[in-house]
């Protein structure tokens, strides 16, 4: 038993943190929201060069093998820096294709996986049992749709709709399209991909919550009212303390899920990280006061993401059902 990151895993997280903190991600997020995917795609490509999208891909398809712990480390950082785009969906698509290959359907994996693993291309997808909307289909190189036991490459994005998070765009992919694979293996692989999507979202949520807390603590330490910093008021301190408790008890569930990758453990992590990050968003807004309610402040980039992430790839109720089914 050594339930701690190895030195290499911790160093990987720090290197991503260093890269992302220097990358001015808020500008990329704002550009993404305005329909300009260029900075976001450049960011993805850079993350690709350090292997972030190769962590769910076997070596034969250009990946580094399936490394959920490293993936969690990476996606916490992606969440902390609000990296825009279908990053979760790309890894879920990779998991889907890799699983199909394990079932003997290697064609789609050979064709699509190397580009996804390198960060050269992104994918988005819808899965049975998931929501009807694909995320950021307009920016994704591939839009995959699993329906029943068919996997298709959607012929178009479908009409785009705005999300409550302007950096997310939703659409129902156009029906039909090229049939990539079919049969019971598709159904099984889709379930597997849904677990990976929930898992990566849990990590992204945790990172989102951590960023909200970090920014809010920093604000509370410098904002002065009544002649004293607001971070000295107990009502503020205790709310921030509770936020830390919520996030720090989500973290071990995330890494526990990384080790087992069971549906129930992933659901527990997703539920807890999603709720903790959303609670962090509520706290962040309250502690910032009116300025926190503005889109101008970069805080809004995380604030508006927390709730969609809480619900994407497994609402809290769905997660609880999976937990009970597995215990």
């Amino acid at each position, binding site marked *: *038993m050594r339930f701690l990151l190895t030195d290499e895993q911790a160093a990987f997280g720090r290197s991503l943190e260093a890269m992302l903190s220097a990358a001015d991600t808020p500008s990329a997020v704002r550009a993404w929201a305005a329909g300009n995917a260029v900075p976001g795609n450049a960011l993805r490509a850079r993350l690709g060069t350090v292997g972030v999208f190769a962590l769910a891909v076997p070596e034969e398809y250009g990946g580094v093998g399936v490394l959920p712990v490293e993936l969690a480390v990476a996606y916490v950082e992606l969440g902390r820096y609000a990296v825009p785009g279908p990053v979760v969906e790309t890894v879920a698509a990779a998991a889907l294709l890799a699983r199909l290959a394990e079932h003997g359907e290697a064609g789609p994996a050979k064709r699509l996986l190397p580009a996804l693993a390198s960060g050269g291309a992104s994918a988005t997808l819808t899965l049975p049992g998931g929501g009807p909307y694909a995320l950021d289909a307009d920016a994704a190189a591939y839009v995959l749709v699993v329906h029943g036991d068919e996997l298709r490459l959607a012929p178009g994005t479908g009409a785009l709709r705005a999300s409550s998070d302007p950096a997310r765009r939703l659409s129902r992919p156009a029906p039909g399209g090229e049939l990539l694979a079919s049969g019971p293996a598709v159904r099984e692989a889709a379930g597997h991909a849904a677990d990976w999507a929930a898992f990566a979202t849990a990590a992204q949520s945790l990172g989102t919550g951590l960023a909200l807390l970090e920014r809010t603590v920093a604000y509370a*330490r410098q904002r002065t009212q009544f002649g004293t910093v607001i971070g000295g008021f*107990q009502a503020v301190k205790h709310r921030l303390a509770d936020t830390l408790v919520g996030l720090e008890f989500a973290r071990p569930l995330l890494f526990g899920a990384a080790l087992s990758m069971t549906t129930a453990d992933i659901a527990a992590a997703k539920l807890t990280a999603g709720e903790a990050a959303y609670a962090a968003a509520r706290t962040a807004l309250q502690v910032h006061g009116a300025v926190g309610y503005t889109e101008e402040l970069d805080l809004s980039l995380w604030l508006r993401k927390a709730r969609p992430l809480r619900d994407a790839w497994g609402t809290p109720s769905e997660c609880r059902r999976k937990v009970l089914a597995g215990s």
Partner: protein
Amino acid sequence: MDLRHTPQEDAFRAEARAWLAANVPERPLPSLETEEGFAAHRAWEARLHADRWSVVAWPREYGGRGVDLFTWLVFEEEYFAAGAPGRVSQNGVSLLAPTLFDHATDEQRARVLPSMASGEVIWAQAWSEPEAGSDLASLRSRAVRTDGGWLLSGHKTWSSRAAFADRAFGIFRTDPGAAKPHHGLTYLMFDLRARGVTVRPIGRLDGKPAFAELFLDDVFVPDEDVIGEPGQGWRIAMSTTGNERGLTLRSPGRFVAASQRLVRDWRASADPSDTALGDRVADAVVGARAYQLFTYANASRFAAGASIGAESSLNKVFWSDYDIALHETALDLLGADGELADGEWAEGHVFSLAGPIYAGTNEIQRDIIAERLLGLPKGRRR
């Protein structure tokens, strides 16, 4: 990252499980917080001790097995899963013993620990006073120098299990002139049956005498019962509060077992259309797992040489809030029977309600988290 147990831990688990299966009383013992139950729990401690299960993490010379923290966690998982009795010696084992390991002389350890391990001597914690709760450092009970020792006087209260316990450990003011309130305090042990001690049991919310107040009137304590240097009492006491708040007071095994019992009861009796209740059962399962994994992470950090400081306040807030939610869910599941005083979850519920108060209230813990872990300004506390 690795959550696997070693073969030795697995073997230990199997041995503990077998012993517990053969020895745990078939019917629950009477409540620990009654005279009859106290005696029955003391006898259970002796039984555990006879086969070296009472203090597995202690060195062998004091009656333990010298196992590490991970193995202790395994023991706790098995202990609670087996539905074994509550631990009447808990406050001695989890609060006084670590203090003795860190600060006492060999002579004191040899004198105190074996009888603590066997349950022959049950210890009570005597820190709080009527006017010194959260602000413990304002305590007024005094120890005054006398020939060969000290004379205690004052009023201690809320001392758990003191109604039936044998001895107590506490902090006393030995230098009233010290510059700061938490200077001039001394940590010492005394006999609850010594001359000058009056124990008045206090009924907790359900009426059971779970704690007591102690009136001390020139109670003699020999020098050999002072722990560490006189005047160092605060520092010594604070070095064990991490144990109290942290992982050794409320081991995750307790909550994992309780959440599994809850799932079992829910499967057996719940209305499946009541999804709101099902959600809370799921939360109980998730919370127990989170606490277990959080503890494994802390134990790993500990094994890697780190010390657990203010992080123990995260534990304390989490388990105390969790415990109440778990028991409230269980009572709701019982419906009308949830009101019965002898129901399966009733005593646990009463007990859980005090969790946010003892071992440092959750308000104080949140202050500690905010100040020491988040770096927010210090408030008006000592």
